[in-house]
C-alpha cells in the first residue's frame, strides 16, 4: 500500500471549490458580522498555505484566534448558531493544510457538515438548493481523489463527465434514500433538546419595545399557513392571539414570569367553532398563536393563564398544530384581586397628561367602563392617524402620542390605549399576535406573514371578562397613511400585475414542499398508510416495512449498477442498435465482425437486404475510419448519420 499521494493542482482546486461550495450556504445564514470575517479568514489562509503548509504553531494560533473571535462576536450565550459559526470558522482555516490526499479528504469530510449545519439554521429553498449543490460538488471532489489515488488522474476527466457520473451514483442511491426517509421509524420526541439560537430571528416574543417591530412589519415572509376545516372567520375577525403583556415600565411591555405558571381560567365559549391546522414556520421561540381562544391545548403544548399557548419545545423547525378555537362569550369573568391589581398597575411618574385625562373620563362616566372604552375608540376614530413613520419614543411617550403626534402604528395604539384604560381604573393588557391573513386561491389556504404582526388590547369588563379591543382598527380609513401599501403580497414587486399570481404559485409550492418534506414527522409517518386502509402503523410494523423497502431498493441499486454503461458516442450507439435489429433474421453483427465483413455475410445470405445496408455501412466506415479531414466529422454529418442509422430497418417484406 503506497503512502498517501501528494495532491496535484487540479485535485487541489476541486477540494477547495467543493469546500467553498459547502461553506457558502452556512455563511449566508450567519450574521454579517460573523460571515464576512470568516470568509476573509478562509481566503487569507488558503492564499498563505498555497505554496507550502503553514507551520503547526501558526495553525494552532489561527485556530485559537478564530474561536476567540467567533465567541466574542456572538457574546456569552452559546447557541446553535454559535456552534455553526464555529464550524464555519474551523472550515475556513482548514485549507492551511492541503498538501496530501488525506488532508483533502478530511477537508471534504468535515465540509459535508456545513450543509447539515445550514439546515439546522434554515430550511428555506435557497439553503436547500445550495446545500444540495455543495453535496454534489463534494462527491465530485471525492471521485477526483479516487482517480488520483488509482494513478489514473492523468486522464483528467472533464468537469462535466465527472459531475455526470456523480449524479448517476446519486440517482442510483436515491431509491434507498427515499425509502429510508419515509419509512425509517422517526422519533416521536427528541432524545436531547435542540440548542437555541444565540441571536434570535424576528418574531413574536414575550416583550414589546416601542419601534422594535418595524423590521417585523416590513418582513413579507410567511409566519403561518392555515387551513380551515369547515367555517372560516371573516378576514377582519382573524386575530391570531399570542402572548399577553401585563407589565409596563414606561418603555417596555413584558409578560411577567409568574403569568406562565397560572392555570387556564374558566371561560365560556360561543357556539361558533373553528377547526383549523396551523403550519408554523420556525421561530426558535416557544410562543404559539391561536385564533381567539383555543378550546384545548394541542399535544406538546400547554395552555397558559392568559389563554395563550406555549410549545413544549422551541419551534426550531416547521411544525403543525391542529386546533379548535371559539370566540369567547365570557373570558375569565372572575378576576382575582391579585390579577386585577397587576392589570391596573402603572409605573409611577410617567405620562401625567394621559392619567389626568383618564381620571377625568372616569369622573364623567361613573361606573360605566364600556362607555370609557367607546369614548376612547371614538376619539381615535376622529383624531388619530396610522403611519409607520414615527418619531422615537421619549419619556412620556404615551402623552406625546395621545396629545401631540396622534399618529403611529399598532404598538403605539395598543400600549397607549392600555395605559389610558388602566389610568381610568379598567383592567387592561396588551395582546400580541397576528391579525388578518391572505387567502391563496391556489390550494385554498391562508397565509399570515410576519408583516401581519399586530398588537391590540384586552380590557376586563364586569360580567363579560376580557374583551378584545383593537384601537388601531378604530382609525378612520381615510387617515391610514404610509402603511404597507397593499395587503396582497407580491403586487409591489418587479413583476407588476403578475406579481401576485407569481407569489401565489411560489407560496403554494413552498407549502407543498413543507407539507411533503419539511413537516414530515413521527405522527405523520404513523398516519401515512391511512389512505390505503392500513390505519395507524406502529414502530415495529414500520421497521418491517422499512426493511422490505430497503431490501428492494438495494436490489434495484444493484440491478441499476449492473446494467452496462451506455456507449457515449451516439454514432457508435446507433450503429450497434442497427446491428442488433438484424437479430430476428439471425444476421446480427457479431462483436468481432467489421462493418464490411458483416455486410459481406448479409449480402451472401440475403442479397436483397444488402443494398440499403451497403450505403449505410459505407458511410459508417467512412465516418469512423476515414482520414480525419476538416468537415468530415462535423456534428452535422454525425447527426445525419445517426438519423439514417436509427431509421434503417431490415426490410421484412421479403420474409
Amino acid at each position, binding site marked *: 500500500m503506497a503512502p498517501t499521494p501528494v495532491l496535484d493542482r487540479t485535485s487541489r482546486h476541486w477540494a477547495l471549490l467543493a469546500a467553498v461550495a459547502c461553506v457558502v450556504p452556512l455563511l449566508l445564514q450567519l450574521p454579517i458580522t460573523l460571515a464576512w470575517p470568516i470568509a476573509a479568514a478562509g481566503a487569507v489562509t488558503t492564499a498563505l498555505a498555497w505554496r507550502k503548509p503553514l507551520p503547526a504553531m501558526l495553525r494552532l494560533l489561527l485556530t485559537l484566534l478564530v474561536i476567540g473571535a467567533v465567541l466574542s462576536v456572538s457574546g456569552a450565550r452559546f447557541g446553535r448558531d454559535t456552534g455553526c459559526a464555529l464550524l464555519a470558522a474551523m472550515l475556513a482555516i482548514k485549507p492551511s493544510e492541503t498538501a496530501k490526499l488525506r488532508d483533502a479528504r478530511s477537508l471534504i469530510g468535515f465540509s459535508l457538515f456545513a450543509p447539515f449545519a445550514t439546515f439546522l439554521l434554515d430550511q428555506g429553498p435557497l439553503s436547500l438548493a445550495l446545500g444540495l449543490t455543495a453535496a454534489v460538488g463534494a462527491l465530485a471532489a471525492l471521485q477526483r481523489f479516487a482517480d488520483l489515488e488509482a*494513478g489514473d488522474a492523468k486522464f483528467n476527466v472533464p468537469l462535466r463527465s465527472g459531475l455526470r457520473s456523480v449524479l448517476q451514483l446519486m440517482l442510483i*442511491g*436515491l431509491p434507498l434514500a427515499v425509502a429510508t426517509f419515509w419509512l425509517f421509524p422517526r422519533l416521536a420526541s427528541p432524545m436531547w433538546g435542540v440548542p437555541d439560537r444565540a441571536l434570535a430571528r424576528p418574531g413574536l416574543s414575550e416583550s414589546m419595545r416601542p419601534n422594535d417591530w418595524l423590521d417585523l412589519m416590513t418582513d413579507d415572509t410567511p409566519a403561518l399557513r392555515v387551513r380551515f376545516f369547515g367555517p372560516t372567520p371573516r378576514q377582519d375577525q382573524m386575530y391570531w392571539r399570542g402572548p399577553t403583556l401585563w407589565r409596563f415600565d414606561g418603555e417596555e411591555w413584558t409578560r411577567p414570569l409568574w403569568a406562565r405558571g397560572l392555570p387556564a381560567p374558566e371561560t365560556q365559549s360561543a357556539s361558533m367553532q373553528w377547526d383549523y391546522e396551523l403550519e408554523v414556520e420556525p421561530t426558535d421561540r416557544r410562543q404559539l398563536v391561536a385564533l381567539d381562544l383555543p378550546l384545548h391545548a394541542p399535544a406538546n403544548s400547554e395552555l397558559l393563564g392568559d389563554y395563550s399557548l406555549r410549545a413544549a419545545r422551541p419551534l426550531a423547525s416547521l411544525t403543525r398544530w391542529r386546533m379548535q378555537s371559539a370566540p369567547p362569550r365570557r373570558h375569565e369573568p372572575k378576576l382575582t384581586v391579585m390579577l386585577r391589581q397587576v392589570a391596573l398597575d402603572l409605573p409611577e411618574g410617567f405620562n401625567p397628561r394621559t392619567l389626568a385625562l383618564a381620571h377625568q373620563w372616569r369622573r364623567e362616566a361613573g361606573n360605566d367602563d364600556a362607555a370609557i372604552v367607546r369614548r376612547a375608540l371614538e376619539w381615535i376614530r376622529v383624531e388619530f392617524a396610522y403611519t409607520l413613520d414615527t418619531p422615537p419614543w421619549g419619556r412620556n411617550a404615551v402623552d406625546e402620542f395621545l396629545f401631540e403626534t396622534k399618529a403611529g402604528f399598532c404598538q403605539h395604539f395598543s400600549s397607549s390605549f392600555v395605559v389610558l384604560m388602566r389610568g381610568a381604573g379598567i383592567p387592561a393588557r396588551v395582546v400580541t399576535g397576528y391579525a388578518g391573513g391572505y387567502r391563496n386561491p391556489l390550494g385554498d389556504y391562508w397565509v399570515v406573514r410576519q408583516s401581519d404582526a399586530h398588537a391590540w388590547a384586552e380590557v376586563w369588563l364586569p360580567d363579560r371578562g376580557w374583551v378584545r379591543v383593537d384601537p388601531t382598527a378604530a382609525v378612520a380609513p381615510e387617515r391610514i397613511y404610509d402603511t404597507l401599501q397593499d395587503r396582497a403580497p407580491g403586487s409591489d414587486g418587479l413583476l407588476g400585475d403578475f406579481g401576485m399570481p407569481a407569489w401565489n404559485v411560489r407560496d403554494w409550492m413552498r407549502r407543498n414542499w413543507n407539507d411533503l418534506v419539511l413537516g414530515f414527522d413521527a405522527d405523520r409517518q404513523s398516519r401515512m398508510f391511512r389512505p390505503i386502509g392500513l390505519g395507524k402503523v406502529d414502530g415495529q410494523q414500520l421497521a418491517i416495512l422499512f426493511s422490505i423497502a430497503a431490501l428492494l431498493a438495494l436490489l434495484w441499486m444493484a440491478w441499476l449498477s449492473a446494467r452496462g454503461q451506455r456507449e457515449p458516442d451516439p454514432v457508435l450507439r446507433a450503429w450497434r442498435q442497427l446491428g442488433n435489429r438484424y437479430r430476428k433474421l439471425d444476421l446480427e453483427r457479431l462483436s468481432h465482425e467489421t462493418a464490411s465483413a458483416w455486410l459481406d455475410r448479409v449480402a451472401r445470405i440475403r442479397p436483397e437486404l444488402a443494398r440499403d445496408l451497403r450505403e449505410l455501412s459505407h458511410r459508417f466506415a467512412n465516418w469512423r475510419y476515414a482520414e480525419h479531414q476538416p468537415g468530415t466529422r462535423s456534428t452535422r454529418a454525425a447527426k445525419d448519420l445517426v438519423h439514417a442509422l436509427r431509421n434503417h430497418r431490415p426490410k421484412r417484406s421479403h420474409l
Partner: protein
Amino acid sequence: MATLAASRIPASALWRHVRAFALSLTRPREPETLPVSIDRRRVYVLPTRFGLFYATLLLGMAAGALNYNNNPALLLCLLLGGTGLASLIAAQMQLTGLGITAIDAEPVPAGQLLRVRIHAQADPSRARRGLRVDDDDLLEAALLNLEQGRGEAELTLQTHQRGWLDVPRLRIFTTRPLGLARAWTYFWSDAPLLVLATPEAEGPPLPGGSGEQAQSRLHPAGDDVHHLRGYRPGDSRRAIAWKPSARRGTLLVREYEQPSGADVVLDWHQLGNLAYEPRISRLARWIDEAERDGRRYRLNLPGRPALGPDRGAAHRDACQRALALLPPSAGFAP
C-alpha cells in the same frame, strides 16, 4: 519463489495471525489455470479508512437530523449515504465480469526485475479504469486500465534464483469511484514464469572452434571485399561503391566478409574445475557471447541430448532455458 515476506507496515503478531487467517479464507485458495473470470463471489468489498470516517460522519448527521426531526438535513444525510452505498456496488462492479486471460513475462536472468504482464479482458460496455494490481503485500501496485474491453498491467517481480518462478497470488483492487471502499479480488495463476541463469560478470573468453568447416559471414564492417551487389533501401551510404556505380549507371554496394571461427562447443563436462552454479553462470555468459559474435554453438548438458550446433534467437532461448531448468545442485553429482 517470491515469498510473501513480512508486511511493510509494522503489525503486531496477533494482527498478522488474524490477517493470515482471513487471507486463507478468501478465494481462490489454490492456484488455478488461466483464463479465469472474476465472478461476484470472489470480489470482496470493505470500507477504506476514509469510508469509515464518512460512515461515522453520516451516522452523526442522521442521529442529529432524526433527533431534531430536521428533514432537509436527514435527506442530505440519506442522499450522501445512498450515494456511498451505490459507490460500493459500483466498486464491486468494476471487478465482476473481468477476465484474466494470461500472465506472461520476458525471461530475465535471476537477480533482475521480472516484468510480469497481466492481460485482462472484459465486456467493453462498462468502463473499467484505475484498477490496480499488486500482491496484497510487498509489491508496488501496477495500473490496469481497460480500453475497449482489454488492457494489461505490468507488474515488476524481484527474481532471486533461476528456474521456475511461481507467481504469487495477485490482487486486483480499486477504490474508485469515490474512495470510500476498496473492492478487491485475488487470482492465482498456476503457470510459473521462467527465470534465467545469471551469466557471470567476467571470465575466460569463448573456447575456440572445434568444427572443420570454417565459417564466414557477410559483415558490412569486415575487411575483405567480397562482391558488389545492387543497392537496397536501408543500405548505409558509406557502403556504396561510388566508382563502380558511376560505371554501371546504377547504385552498387560493397559487401564484405569476415572470417569467423568454427562451431563452438559449450560443454558442461569440460568445466569440471568449477562448482555447480558458477558453471551454469559461465555457460550462460558464453551462450550470450557466442550469439553476439554470430557464431554457431552447441550446448552439451548432462542428462540430455546436445543442443545445436545452431545460432539465432530461438537457439539461444532454448539453450538458456535448458540451463535455467537444470536441477538444483543438491540432487546432482557432477
